[in-house]
Structures are given as structure tokens and as C-alpha cells.
């Protein structure tokens, strides 16, 4: 037990109250809880990412067309039944099609009210579909997350900023097991005829760069139907629009000089945007699954 050696401060009391609340005690949030998602309560605002379009769905960039809707899952497997989630029966599940390179993306769309530090924390696990009685540890290419941000409408440094991070689990059937980031994206395309809608595909296989010192071996376990939950914490400062920290389980990674985000000119209708998204990608002709149980977004007061 921790024993205070000083008169308790407001921060001490807040920390104690949070530790007494199981839903929060597994996170290390900043003072303001912006959202705390427990998927026993439904999908909590996470929906499939859709590409922009105008006039017809056919105008959507083709890369977006294959994304699938997230679902509420009990992590049910053919050999053991429902594992359930980390804290209850249900987790949010993203599933790809059974095709190498297929992706699935779930996004939650918010806006921010203050340019201050924010922290994204979540518990996750990923697996391929258990369609073979093999270890299958290299059938998931990657999972990752991103923020899609834009400054406020009166800010002098107007920009759209998109930090992307992924764990490259495997590439071409070989274990890779390292964290990567992206600072370049594909060209922005105009859609339709009204000169109002654009789109760019920022999750392509190109332009990922290794994070320095970003190798990490996770707990895949020994068959595809045994899953273990992992923790990630990502810090971002909305004031400077810079990522400031990444942690996965016991490892803290340096987002130092080499790391950056995708940066684009500010776009007309995205002011104060604060989107968070998760994605999963298959590396073989087998569905890849990402499960989330508990997503906490917090910020400075």
C-alpha cells in the first residue's frame, strides 16, 4: 500500500478516487475524462470509417470501399466458446475480409474544447480467424491507431494533423513485430463537381517508417484462440500538435526527433476536430481481428 508522507493534495484525492473505481483504475488518465468507453454499453460512438463521396458512392476512393462495420463481440471461438472481454462479456471487434492487405477501420468523431495535452489509452488484442489449426502468428499484418485533428478556426497555425502509429506484426508472412509511424500520405483528390469534397487515403501500405527502438514482442499466445489483453498509452499535445509519448505494456518508446505526423493544410469544415480511429490489416487470405475493451481519452483541465 502506498502511504502518503504529506498532506493529501487535490491530485492525491483524485488519484485515490480513481483507483477505487475499477473502470478507471486500469487507466492512468489525465485529469479530464473526455470519454471512457466500455463496450458492454454498446459501440460507444465507434463506427466504420467511410470514404468521402459526392453524388454517388462510386465516387469514393476504392481503398475505402472494403472497410467493414465494427461489431460487439464475445470473442467466441469454435473450440472454447466465448472468452468474453477483459471487463465483462463484450468487446469492440474490427474484422477484415479474408484477403492479404484487407483492412478494417473504426472511428470515433469528437471535437476538442481546449488545445492542451490529451492521452489515449486502450486495451487491445489481435488475432487471425482460427480457420486453420496452426499457430498463424504471422497472418495479421498490423494493427494501429490514429488521431485526426485540426486546429481551431481562429488559430494562427491552422493545420490538419494526423498522427498514425501501427504495430507491424508481420510482413509477407514473416514476423516483423515493431512499431511504425507515418508522416506522408497519398495525394488529396477532389471528388464530385461542386469543388467542396476531397479525399485522401492515409492508410496505404506505403510510407510507414520504423520507430527508433520500436521492436517489441507481444503476447500472441500458443494457438489462435487464446488471446491476451495488452495496454497502450499515447500522449499528444494539441497546443504544439506534437506526439509526446507512446507506451505499450511495459515498454516506453521515444517519440523523439525522428517521429512526426501527417500534416496537411487546414480543411474548410474540420475545425477543432478530434477523431480517434483504430485499424487492423490482414497479411494472408485469412480474416484479421482487432478487439478493444476499454478506450479512455483524457485531457488536461
Amino acid at each position, binding site marked *: 500500500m502506498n502511504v502518503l508522507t504529506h498532506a493529501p493534495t487535490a491530485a492525491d484525492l483524485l488519484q485515490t478516487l480513481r483507483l477505487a473505481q475499477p473502470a478507471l483504475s486500469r487507466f492512468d488518465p489525465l485529469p479530464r475524462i473526455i470519454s471512457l468507453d466500455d463496450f458492454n454499453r454498446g459501440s460507444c460512438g465507434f463506427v466504420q470509417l467511410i470514404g468521402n463521396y459526392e453524388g454517388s458512392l462510386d465516387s469514393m476512393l476504392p481503398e475505402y470501399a472494403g472497410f467493414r462495420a465494427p*461489431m460487439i463481440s464475445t470473442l467466441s471461438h469454435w473450440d472454447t466458446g*466465448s472468452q468474453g472481454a477483459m471487463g465483462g462479456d463484450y468487446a469492440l*471487434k474490427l474484422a477484415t475480409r479474408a484477403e492479404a492487405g484487407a483492412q478494417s477501420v473504426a472511428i470515433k468523431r469528437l471535437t476538442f474544447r481546449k488545445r492542451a495535452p490529451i492521452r489515449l489509452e486502450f486495451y487491445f488484442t489481435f488475432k487471425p480467424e482460427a480457420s486453420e489449426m496452426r499457430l498463424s502468428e504471422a497472418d495479421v499484418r498490423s494493427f494501429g491507431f490514429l488521431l485526426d485533428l485540426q486546429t481551431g478556426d481562429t488559430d494562427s497555425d491552422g493545420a490538419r494533423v494526423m498522427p498514425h502509429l501501427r504495430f507491424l506484426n508481420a510482413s509477407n508472412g514473416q514476423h516483423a513485430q515493431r512499431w511504425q509511424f507515418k508522416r506522408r500520405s497519398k495525394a488529396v483528390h477532389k471528388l464530385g463537381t461542386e469543388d467542396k469534397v476531397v479525399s485522401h487515403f492515409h492508410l496505404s501500405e506505403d510510407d510507414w517508417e520504423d520507430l527508433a527502438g520500436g521492436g517489441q514482442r507481444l503476447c500472441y499466445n500458443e494457438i489462435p484462440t487464446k488471446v491476451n489483453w495488452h495496454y497502450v498509452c499515447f500522449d499528444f499535445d494539441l497546443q504544439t500538435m506534437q506526439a509526446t509519448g507512446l507506451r505499450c505494456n511495459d515498454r516506453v518508446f521515444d517519440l523523439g526527433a525522428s517521429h512526426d505526423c501527417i500534416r496537411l493544410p487546414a480543411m474548410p469544415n474540420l475545425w477543432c476536430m478530434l477523431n480517434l480511429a483504430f485499424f487492423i490489416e490482414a497479411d494472408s487470405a485469412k480474416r484479421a481481428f482487432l478487439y478493444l475493451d476499454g478506450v479512455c481519452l483524457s485531457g488536461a483541465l
Partner: protein
Amino acid sequence: MLRHSHTAVIARNEVWAGSAETEPYEAGWAREAVVFITTLSSSGLAEGNRAARVQISPDGMRWVDEGSKLDVPAQTDGVSVARVRHFGNWLRVVSEMPAASRAAVLVTLHLK
């Protein structure tokens, strides 16, 4: 507490010709599912085709017909519906399109 209600788009602007199926969808939390197929464009289809049916699964990999059949609507913006209960955990919609027909469809599950 209000009960959960969720709409899932399980196929959007997908072109069905020959055999097709939606991806597996887990909804074990729900007591009922309403399946809608909306045709966005089509050719070679007649009304009353009953070309689509609902399937359920013990594991998301092996599938069996649930018993519900529904049209792939012949007209643009046409909607067909099936109501499903006691489906376990997994749902999908499969189609066997008539020869020389095709349809771009929107398939949605309405769960509660």
C-alpha cells in the same frame, strides 16, 4: 435502462452477381435482427426472385441456412426485409443471383 439498438451496414454498394455473401457479423447481444436489402442499381432482376437468404453459424466459419429468404429488389431504391430471432451469435446474408442479373446493394442489420 434503455435497451441497445444498433444498425450495421454489412454491405455498401457491393455488386452482387452469381454467388455472393456478406462478411460474418457478430450480434449475440441482440434478441432480434431485421435485415434490409436496398438496391442501389440493378439489371436483369425480376420481382419475387427470393435470391437472398439469411445464414447463421456456430463459429463464424461454418454456415447454415436460417430459413429466411428475401428478394434482391429489382428496382433502384427498392427494399426487401426479413425478420430474424434465435440466431445465436453470427449472421450473414448470401445470395444466388439469377443468370445474367446483377445488383449493387446496401445490406443493413437492425439489431436490438
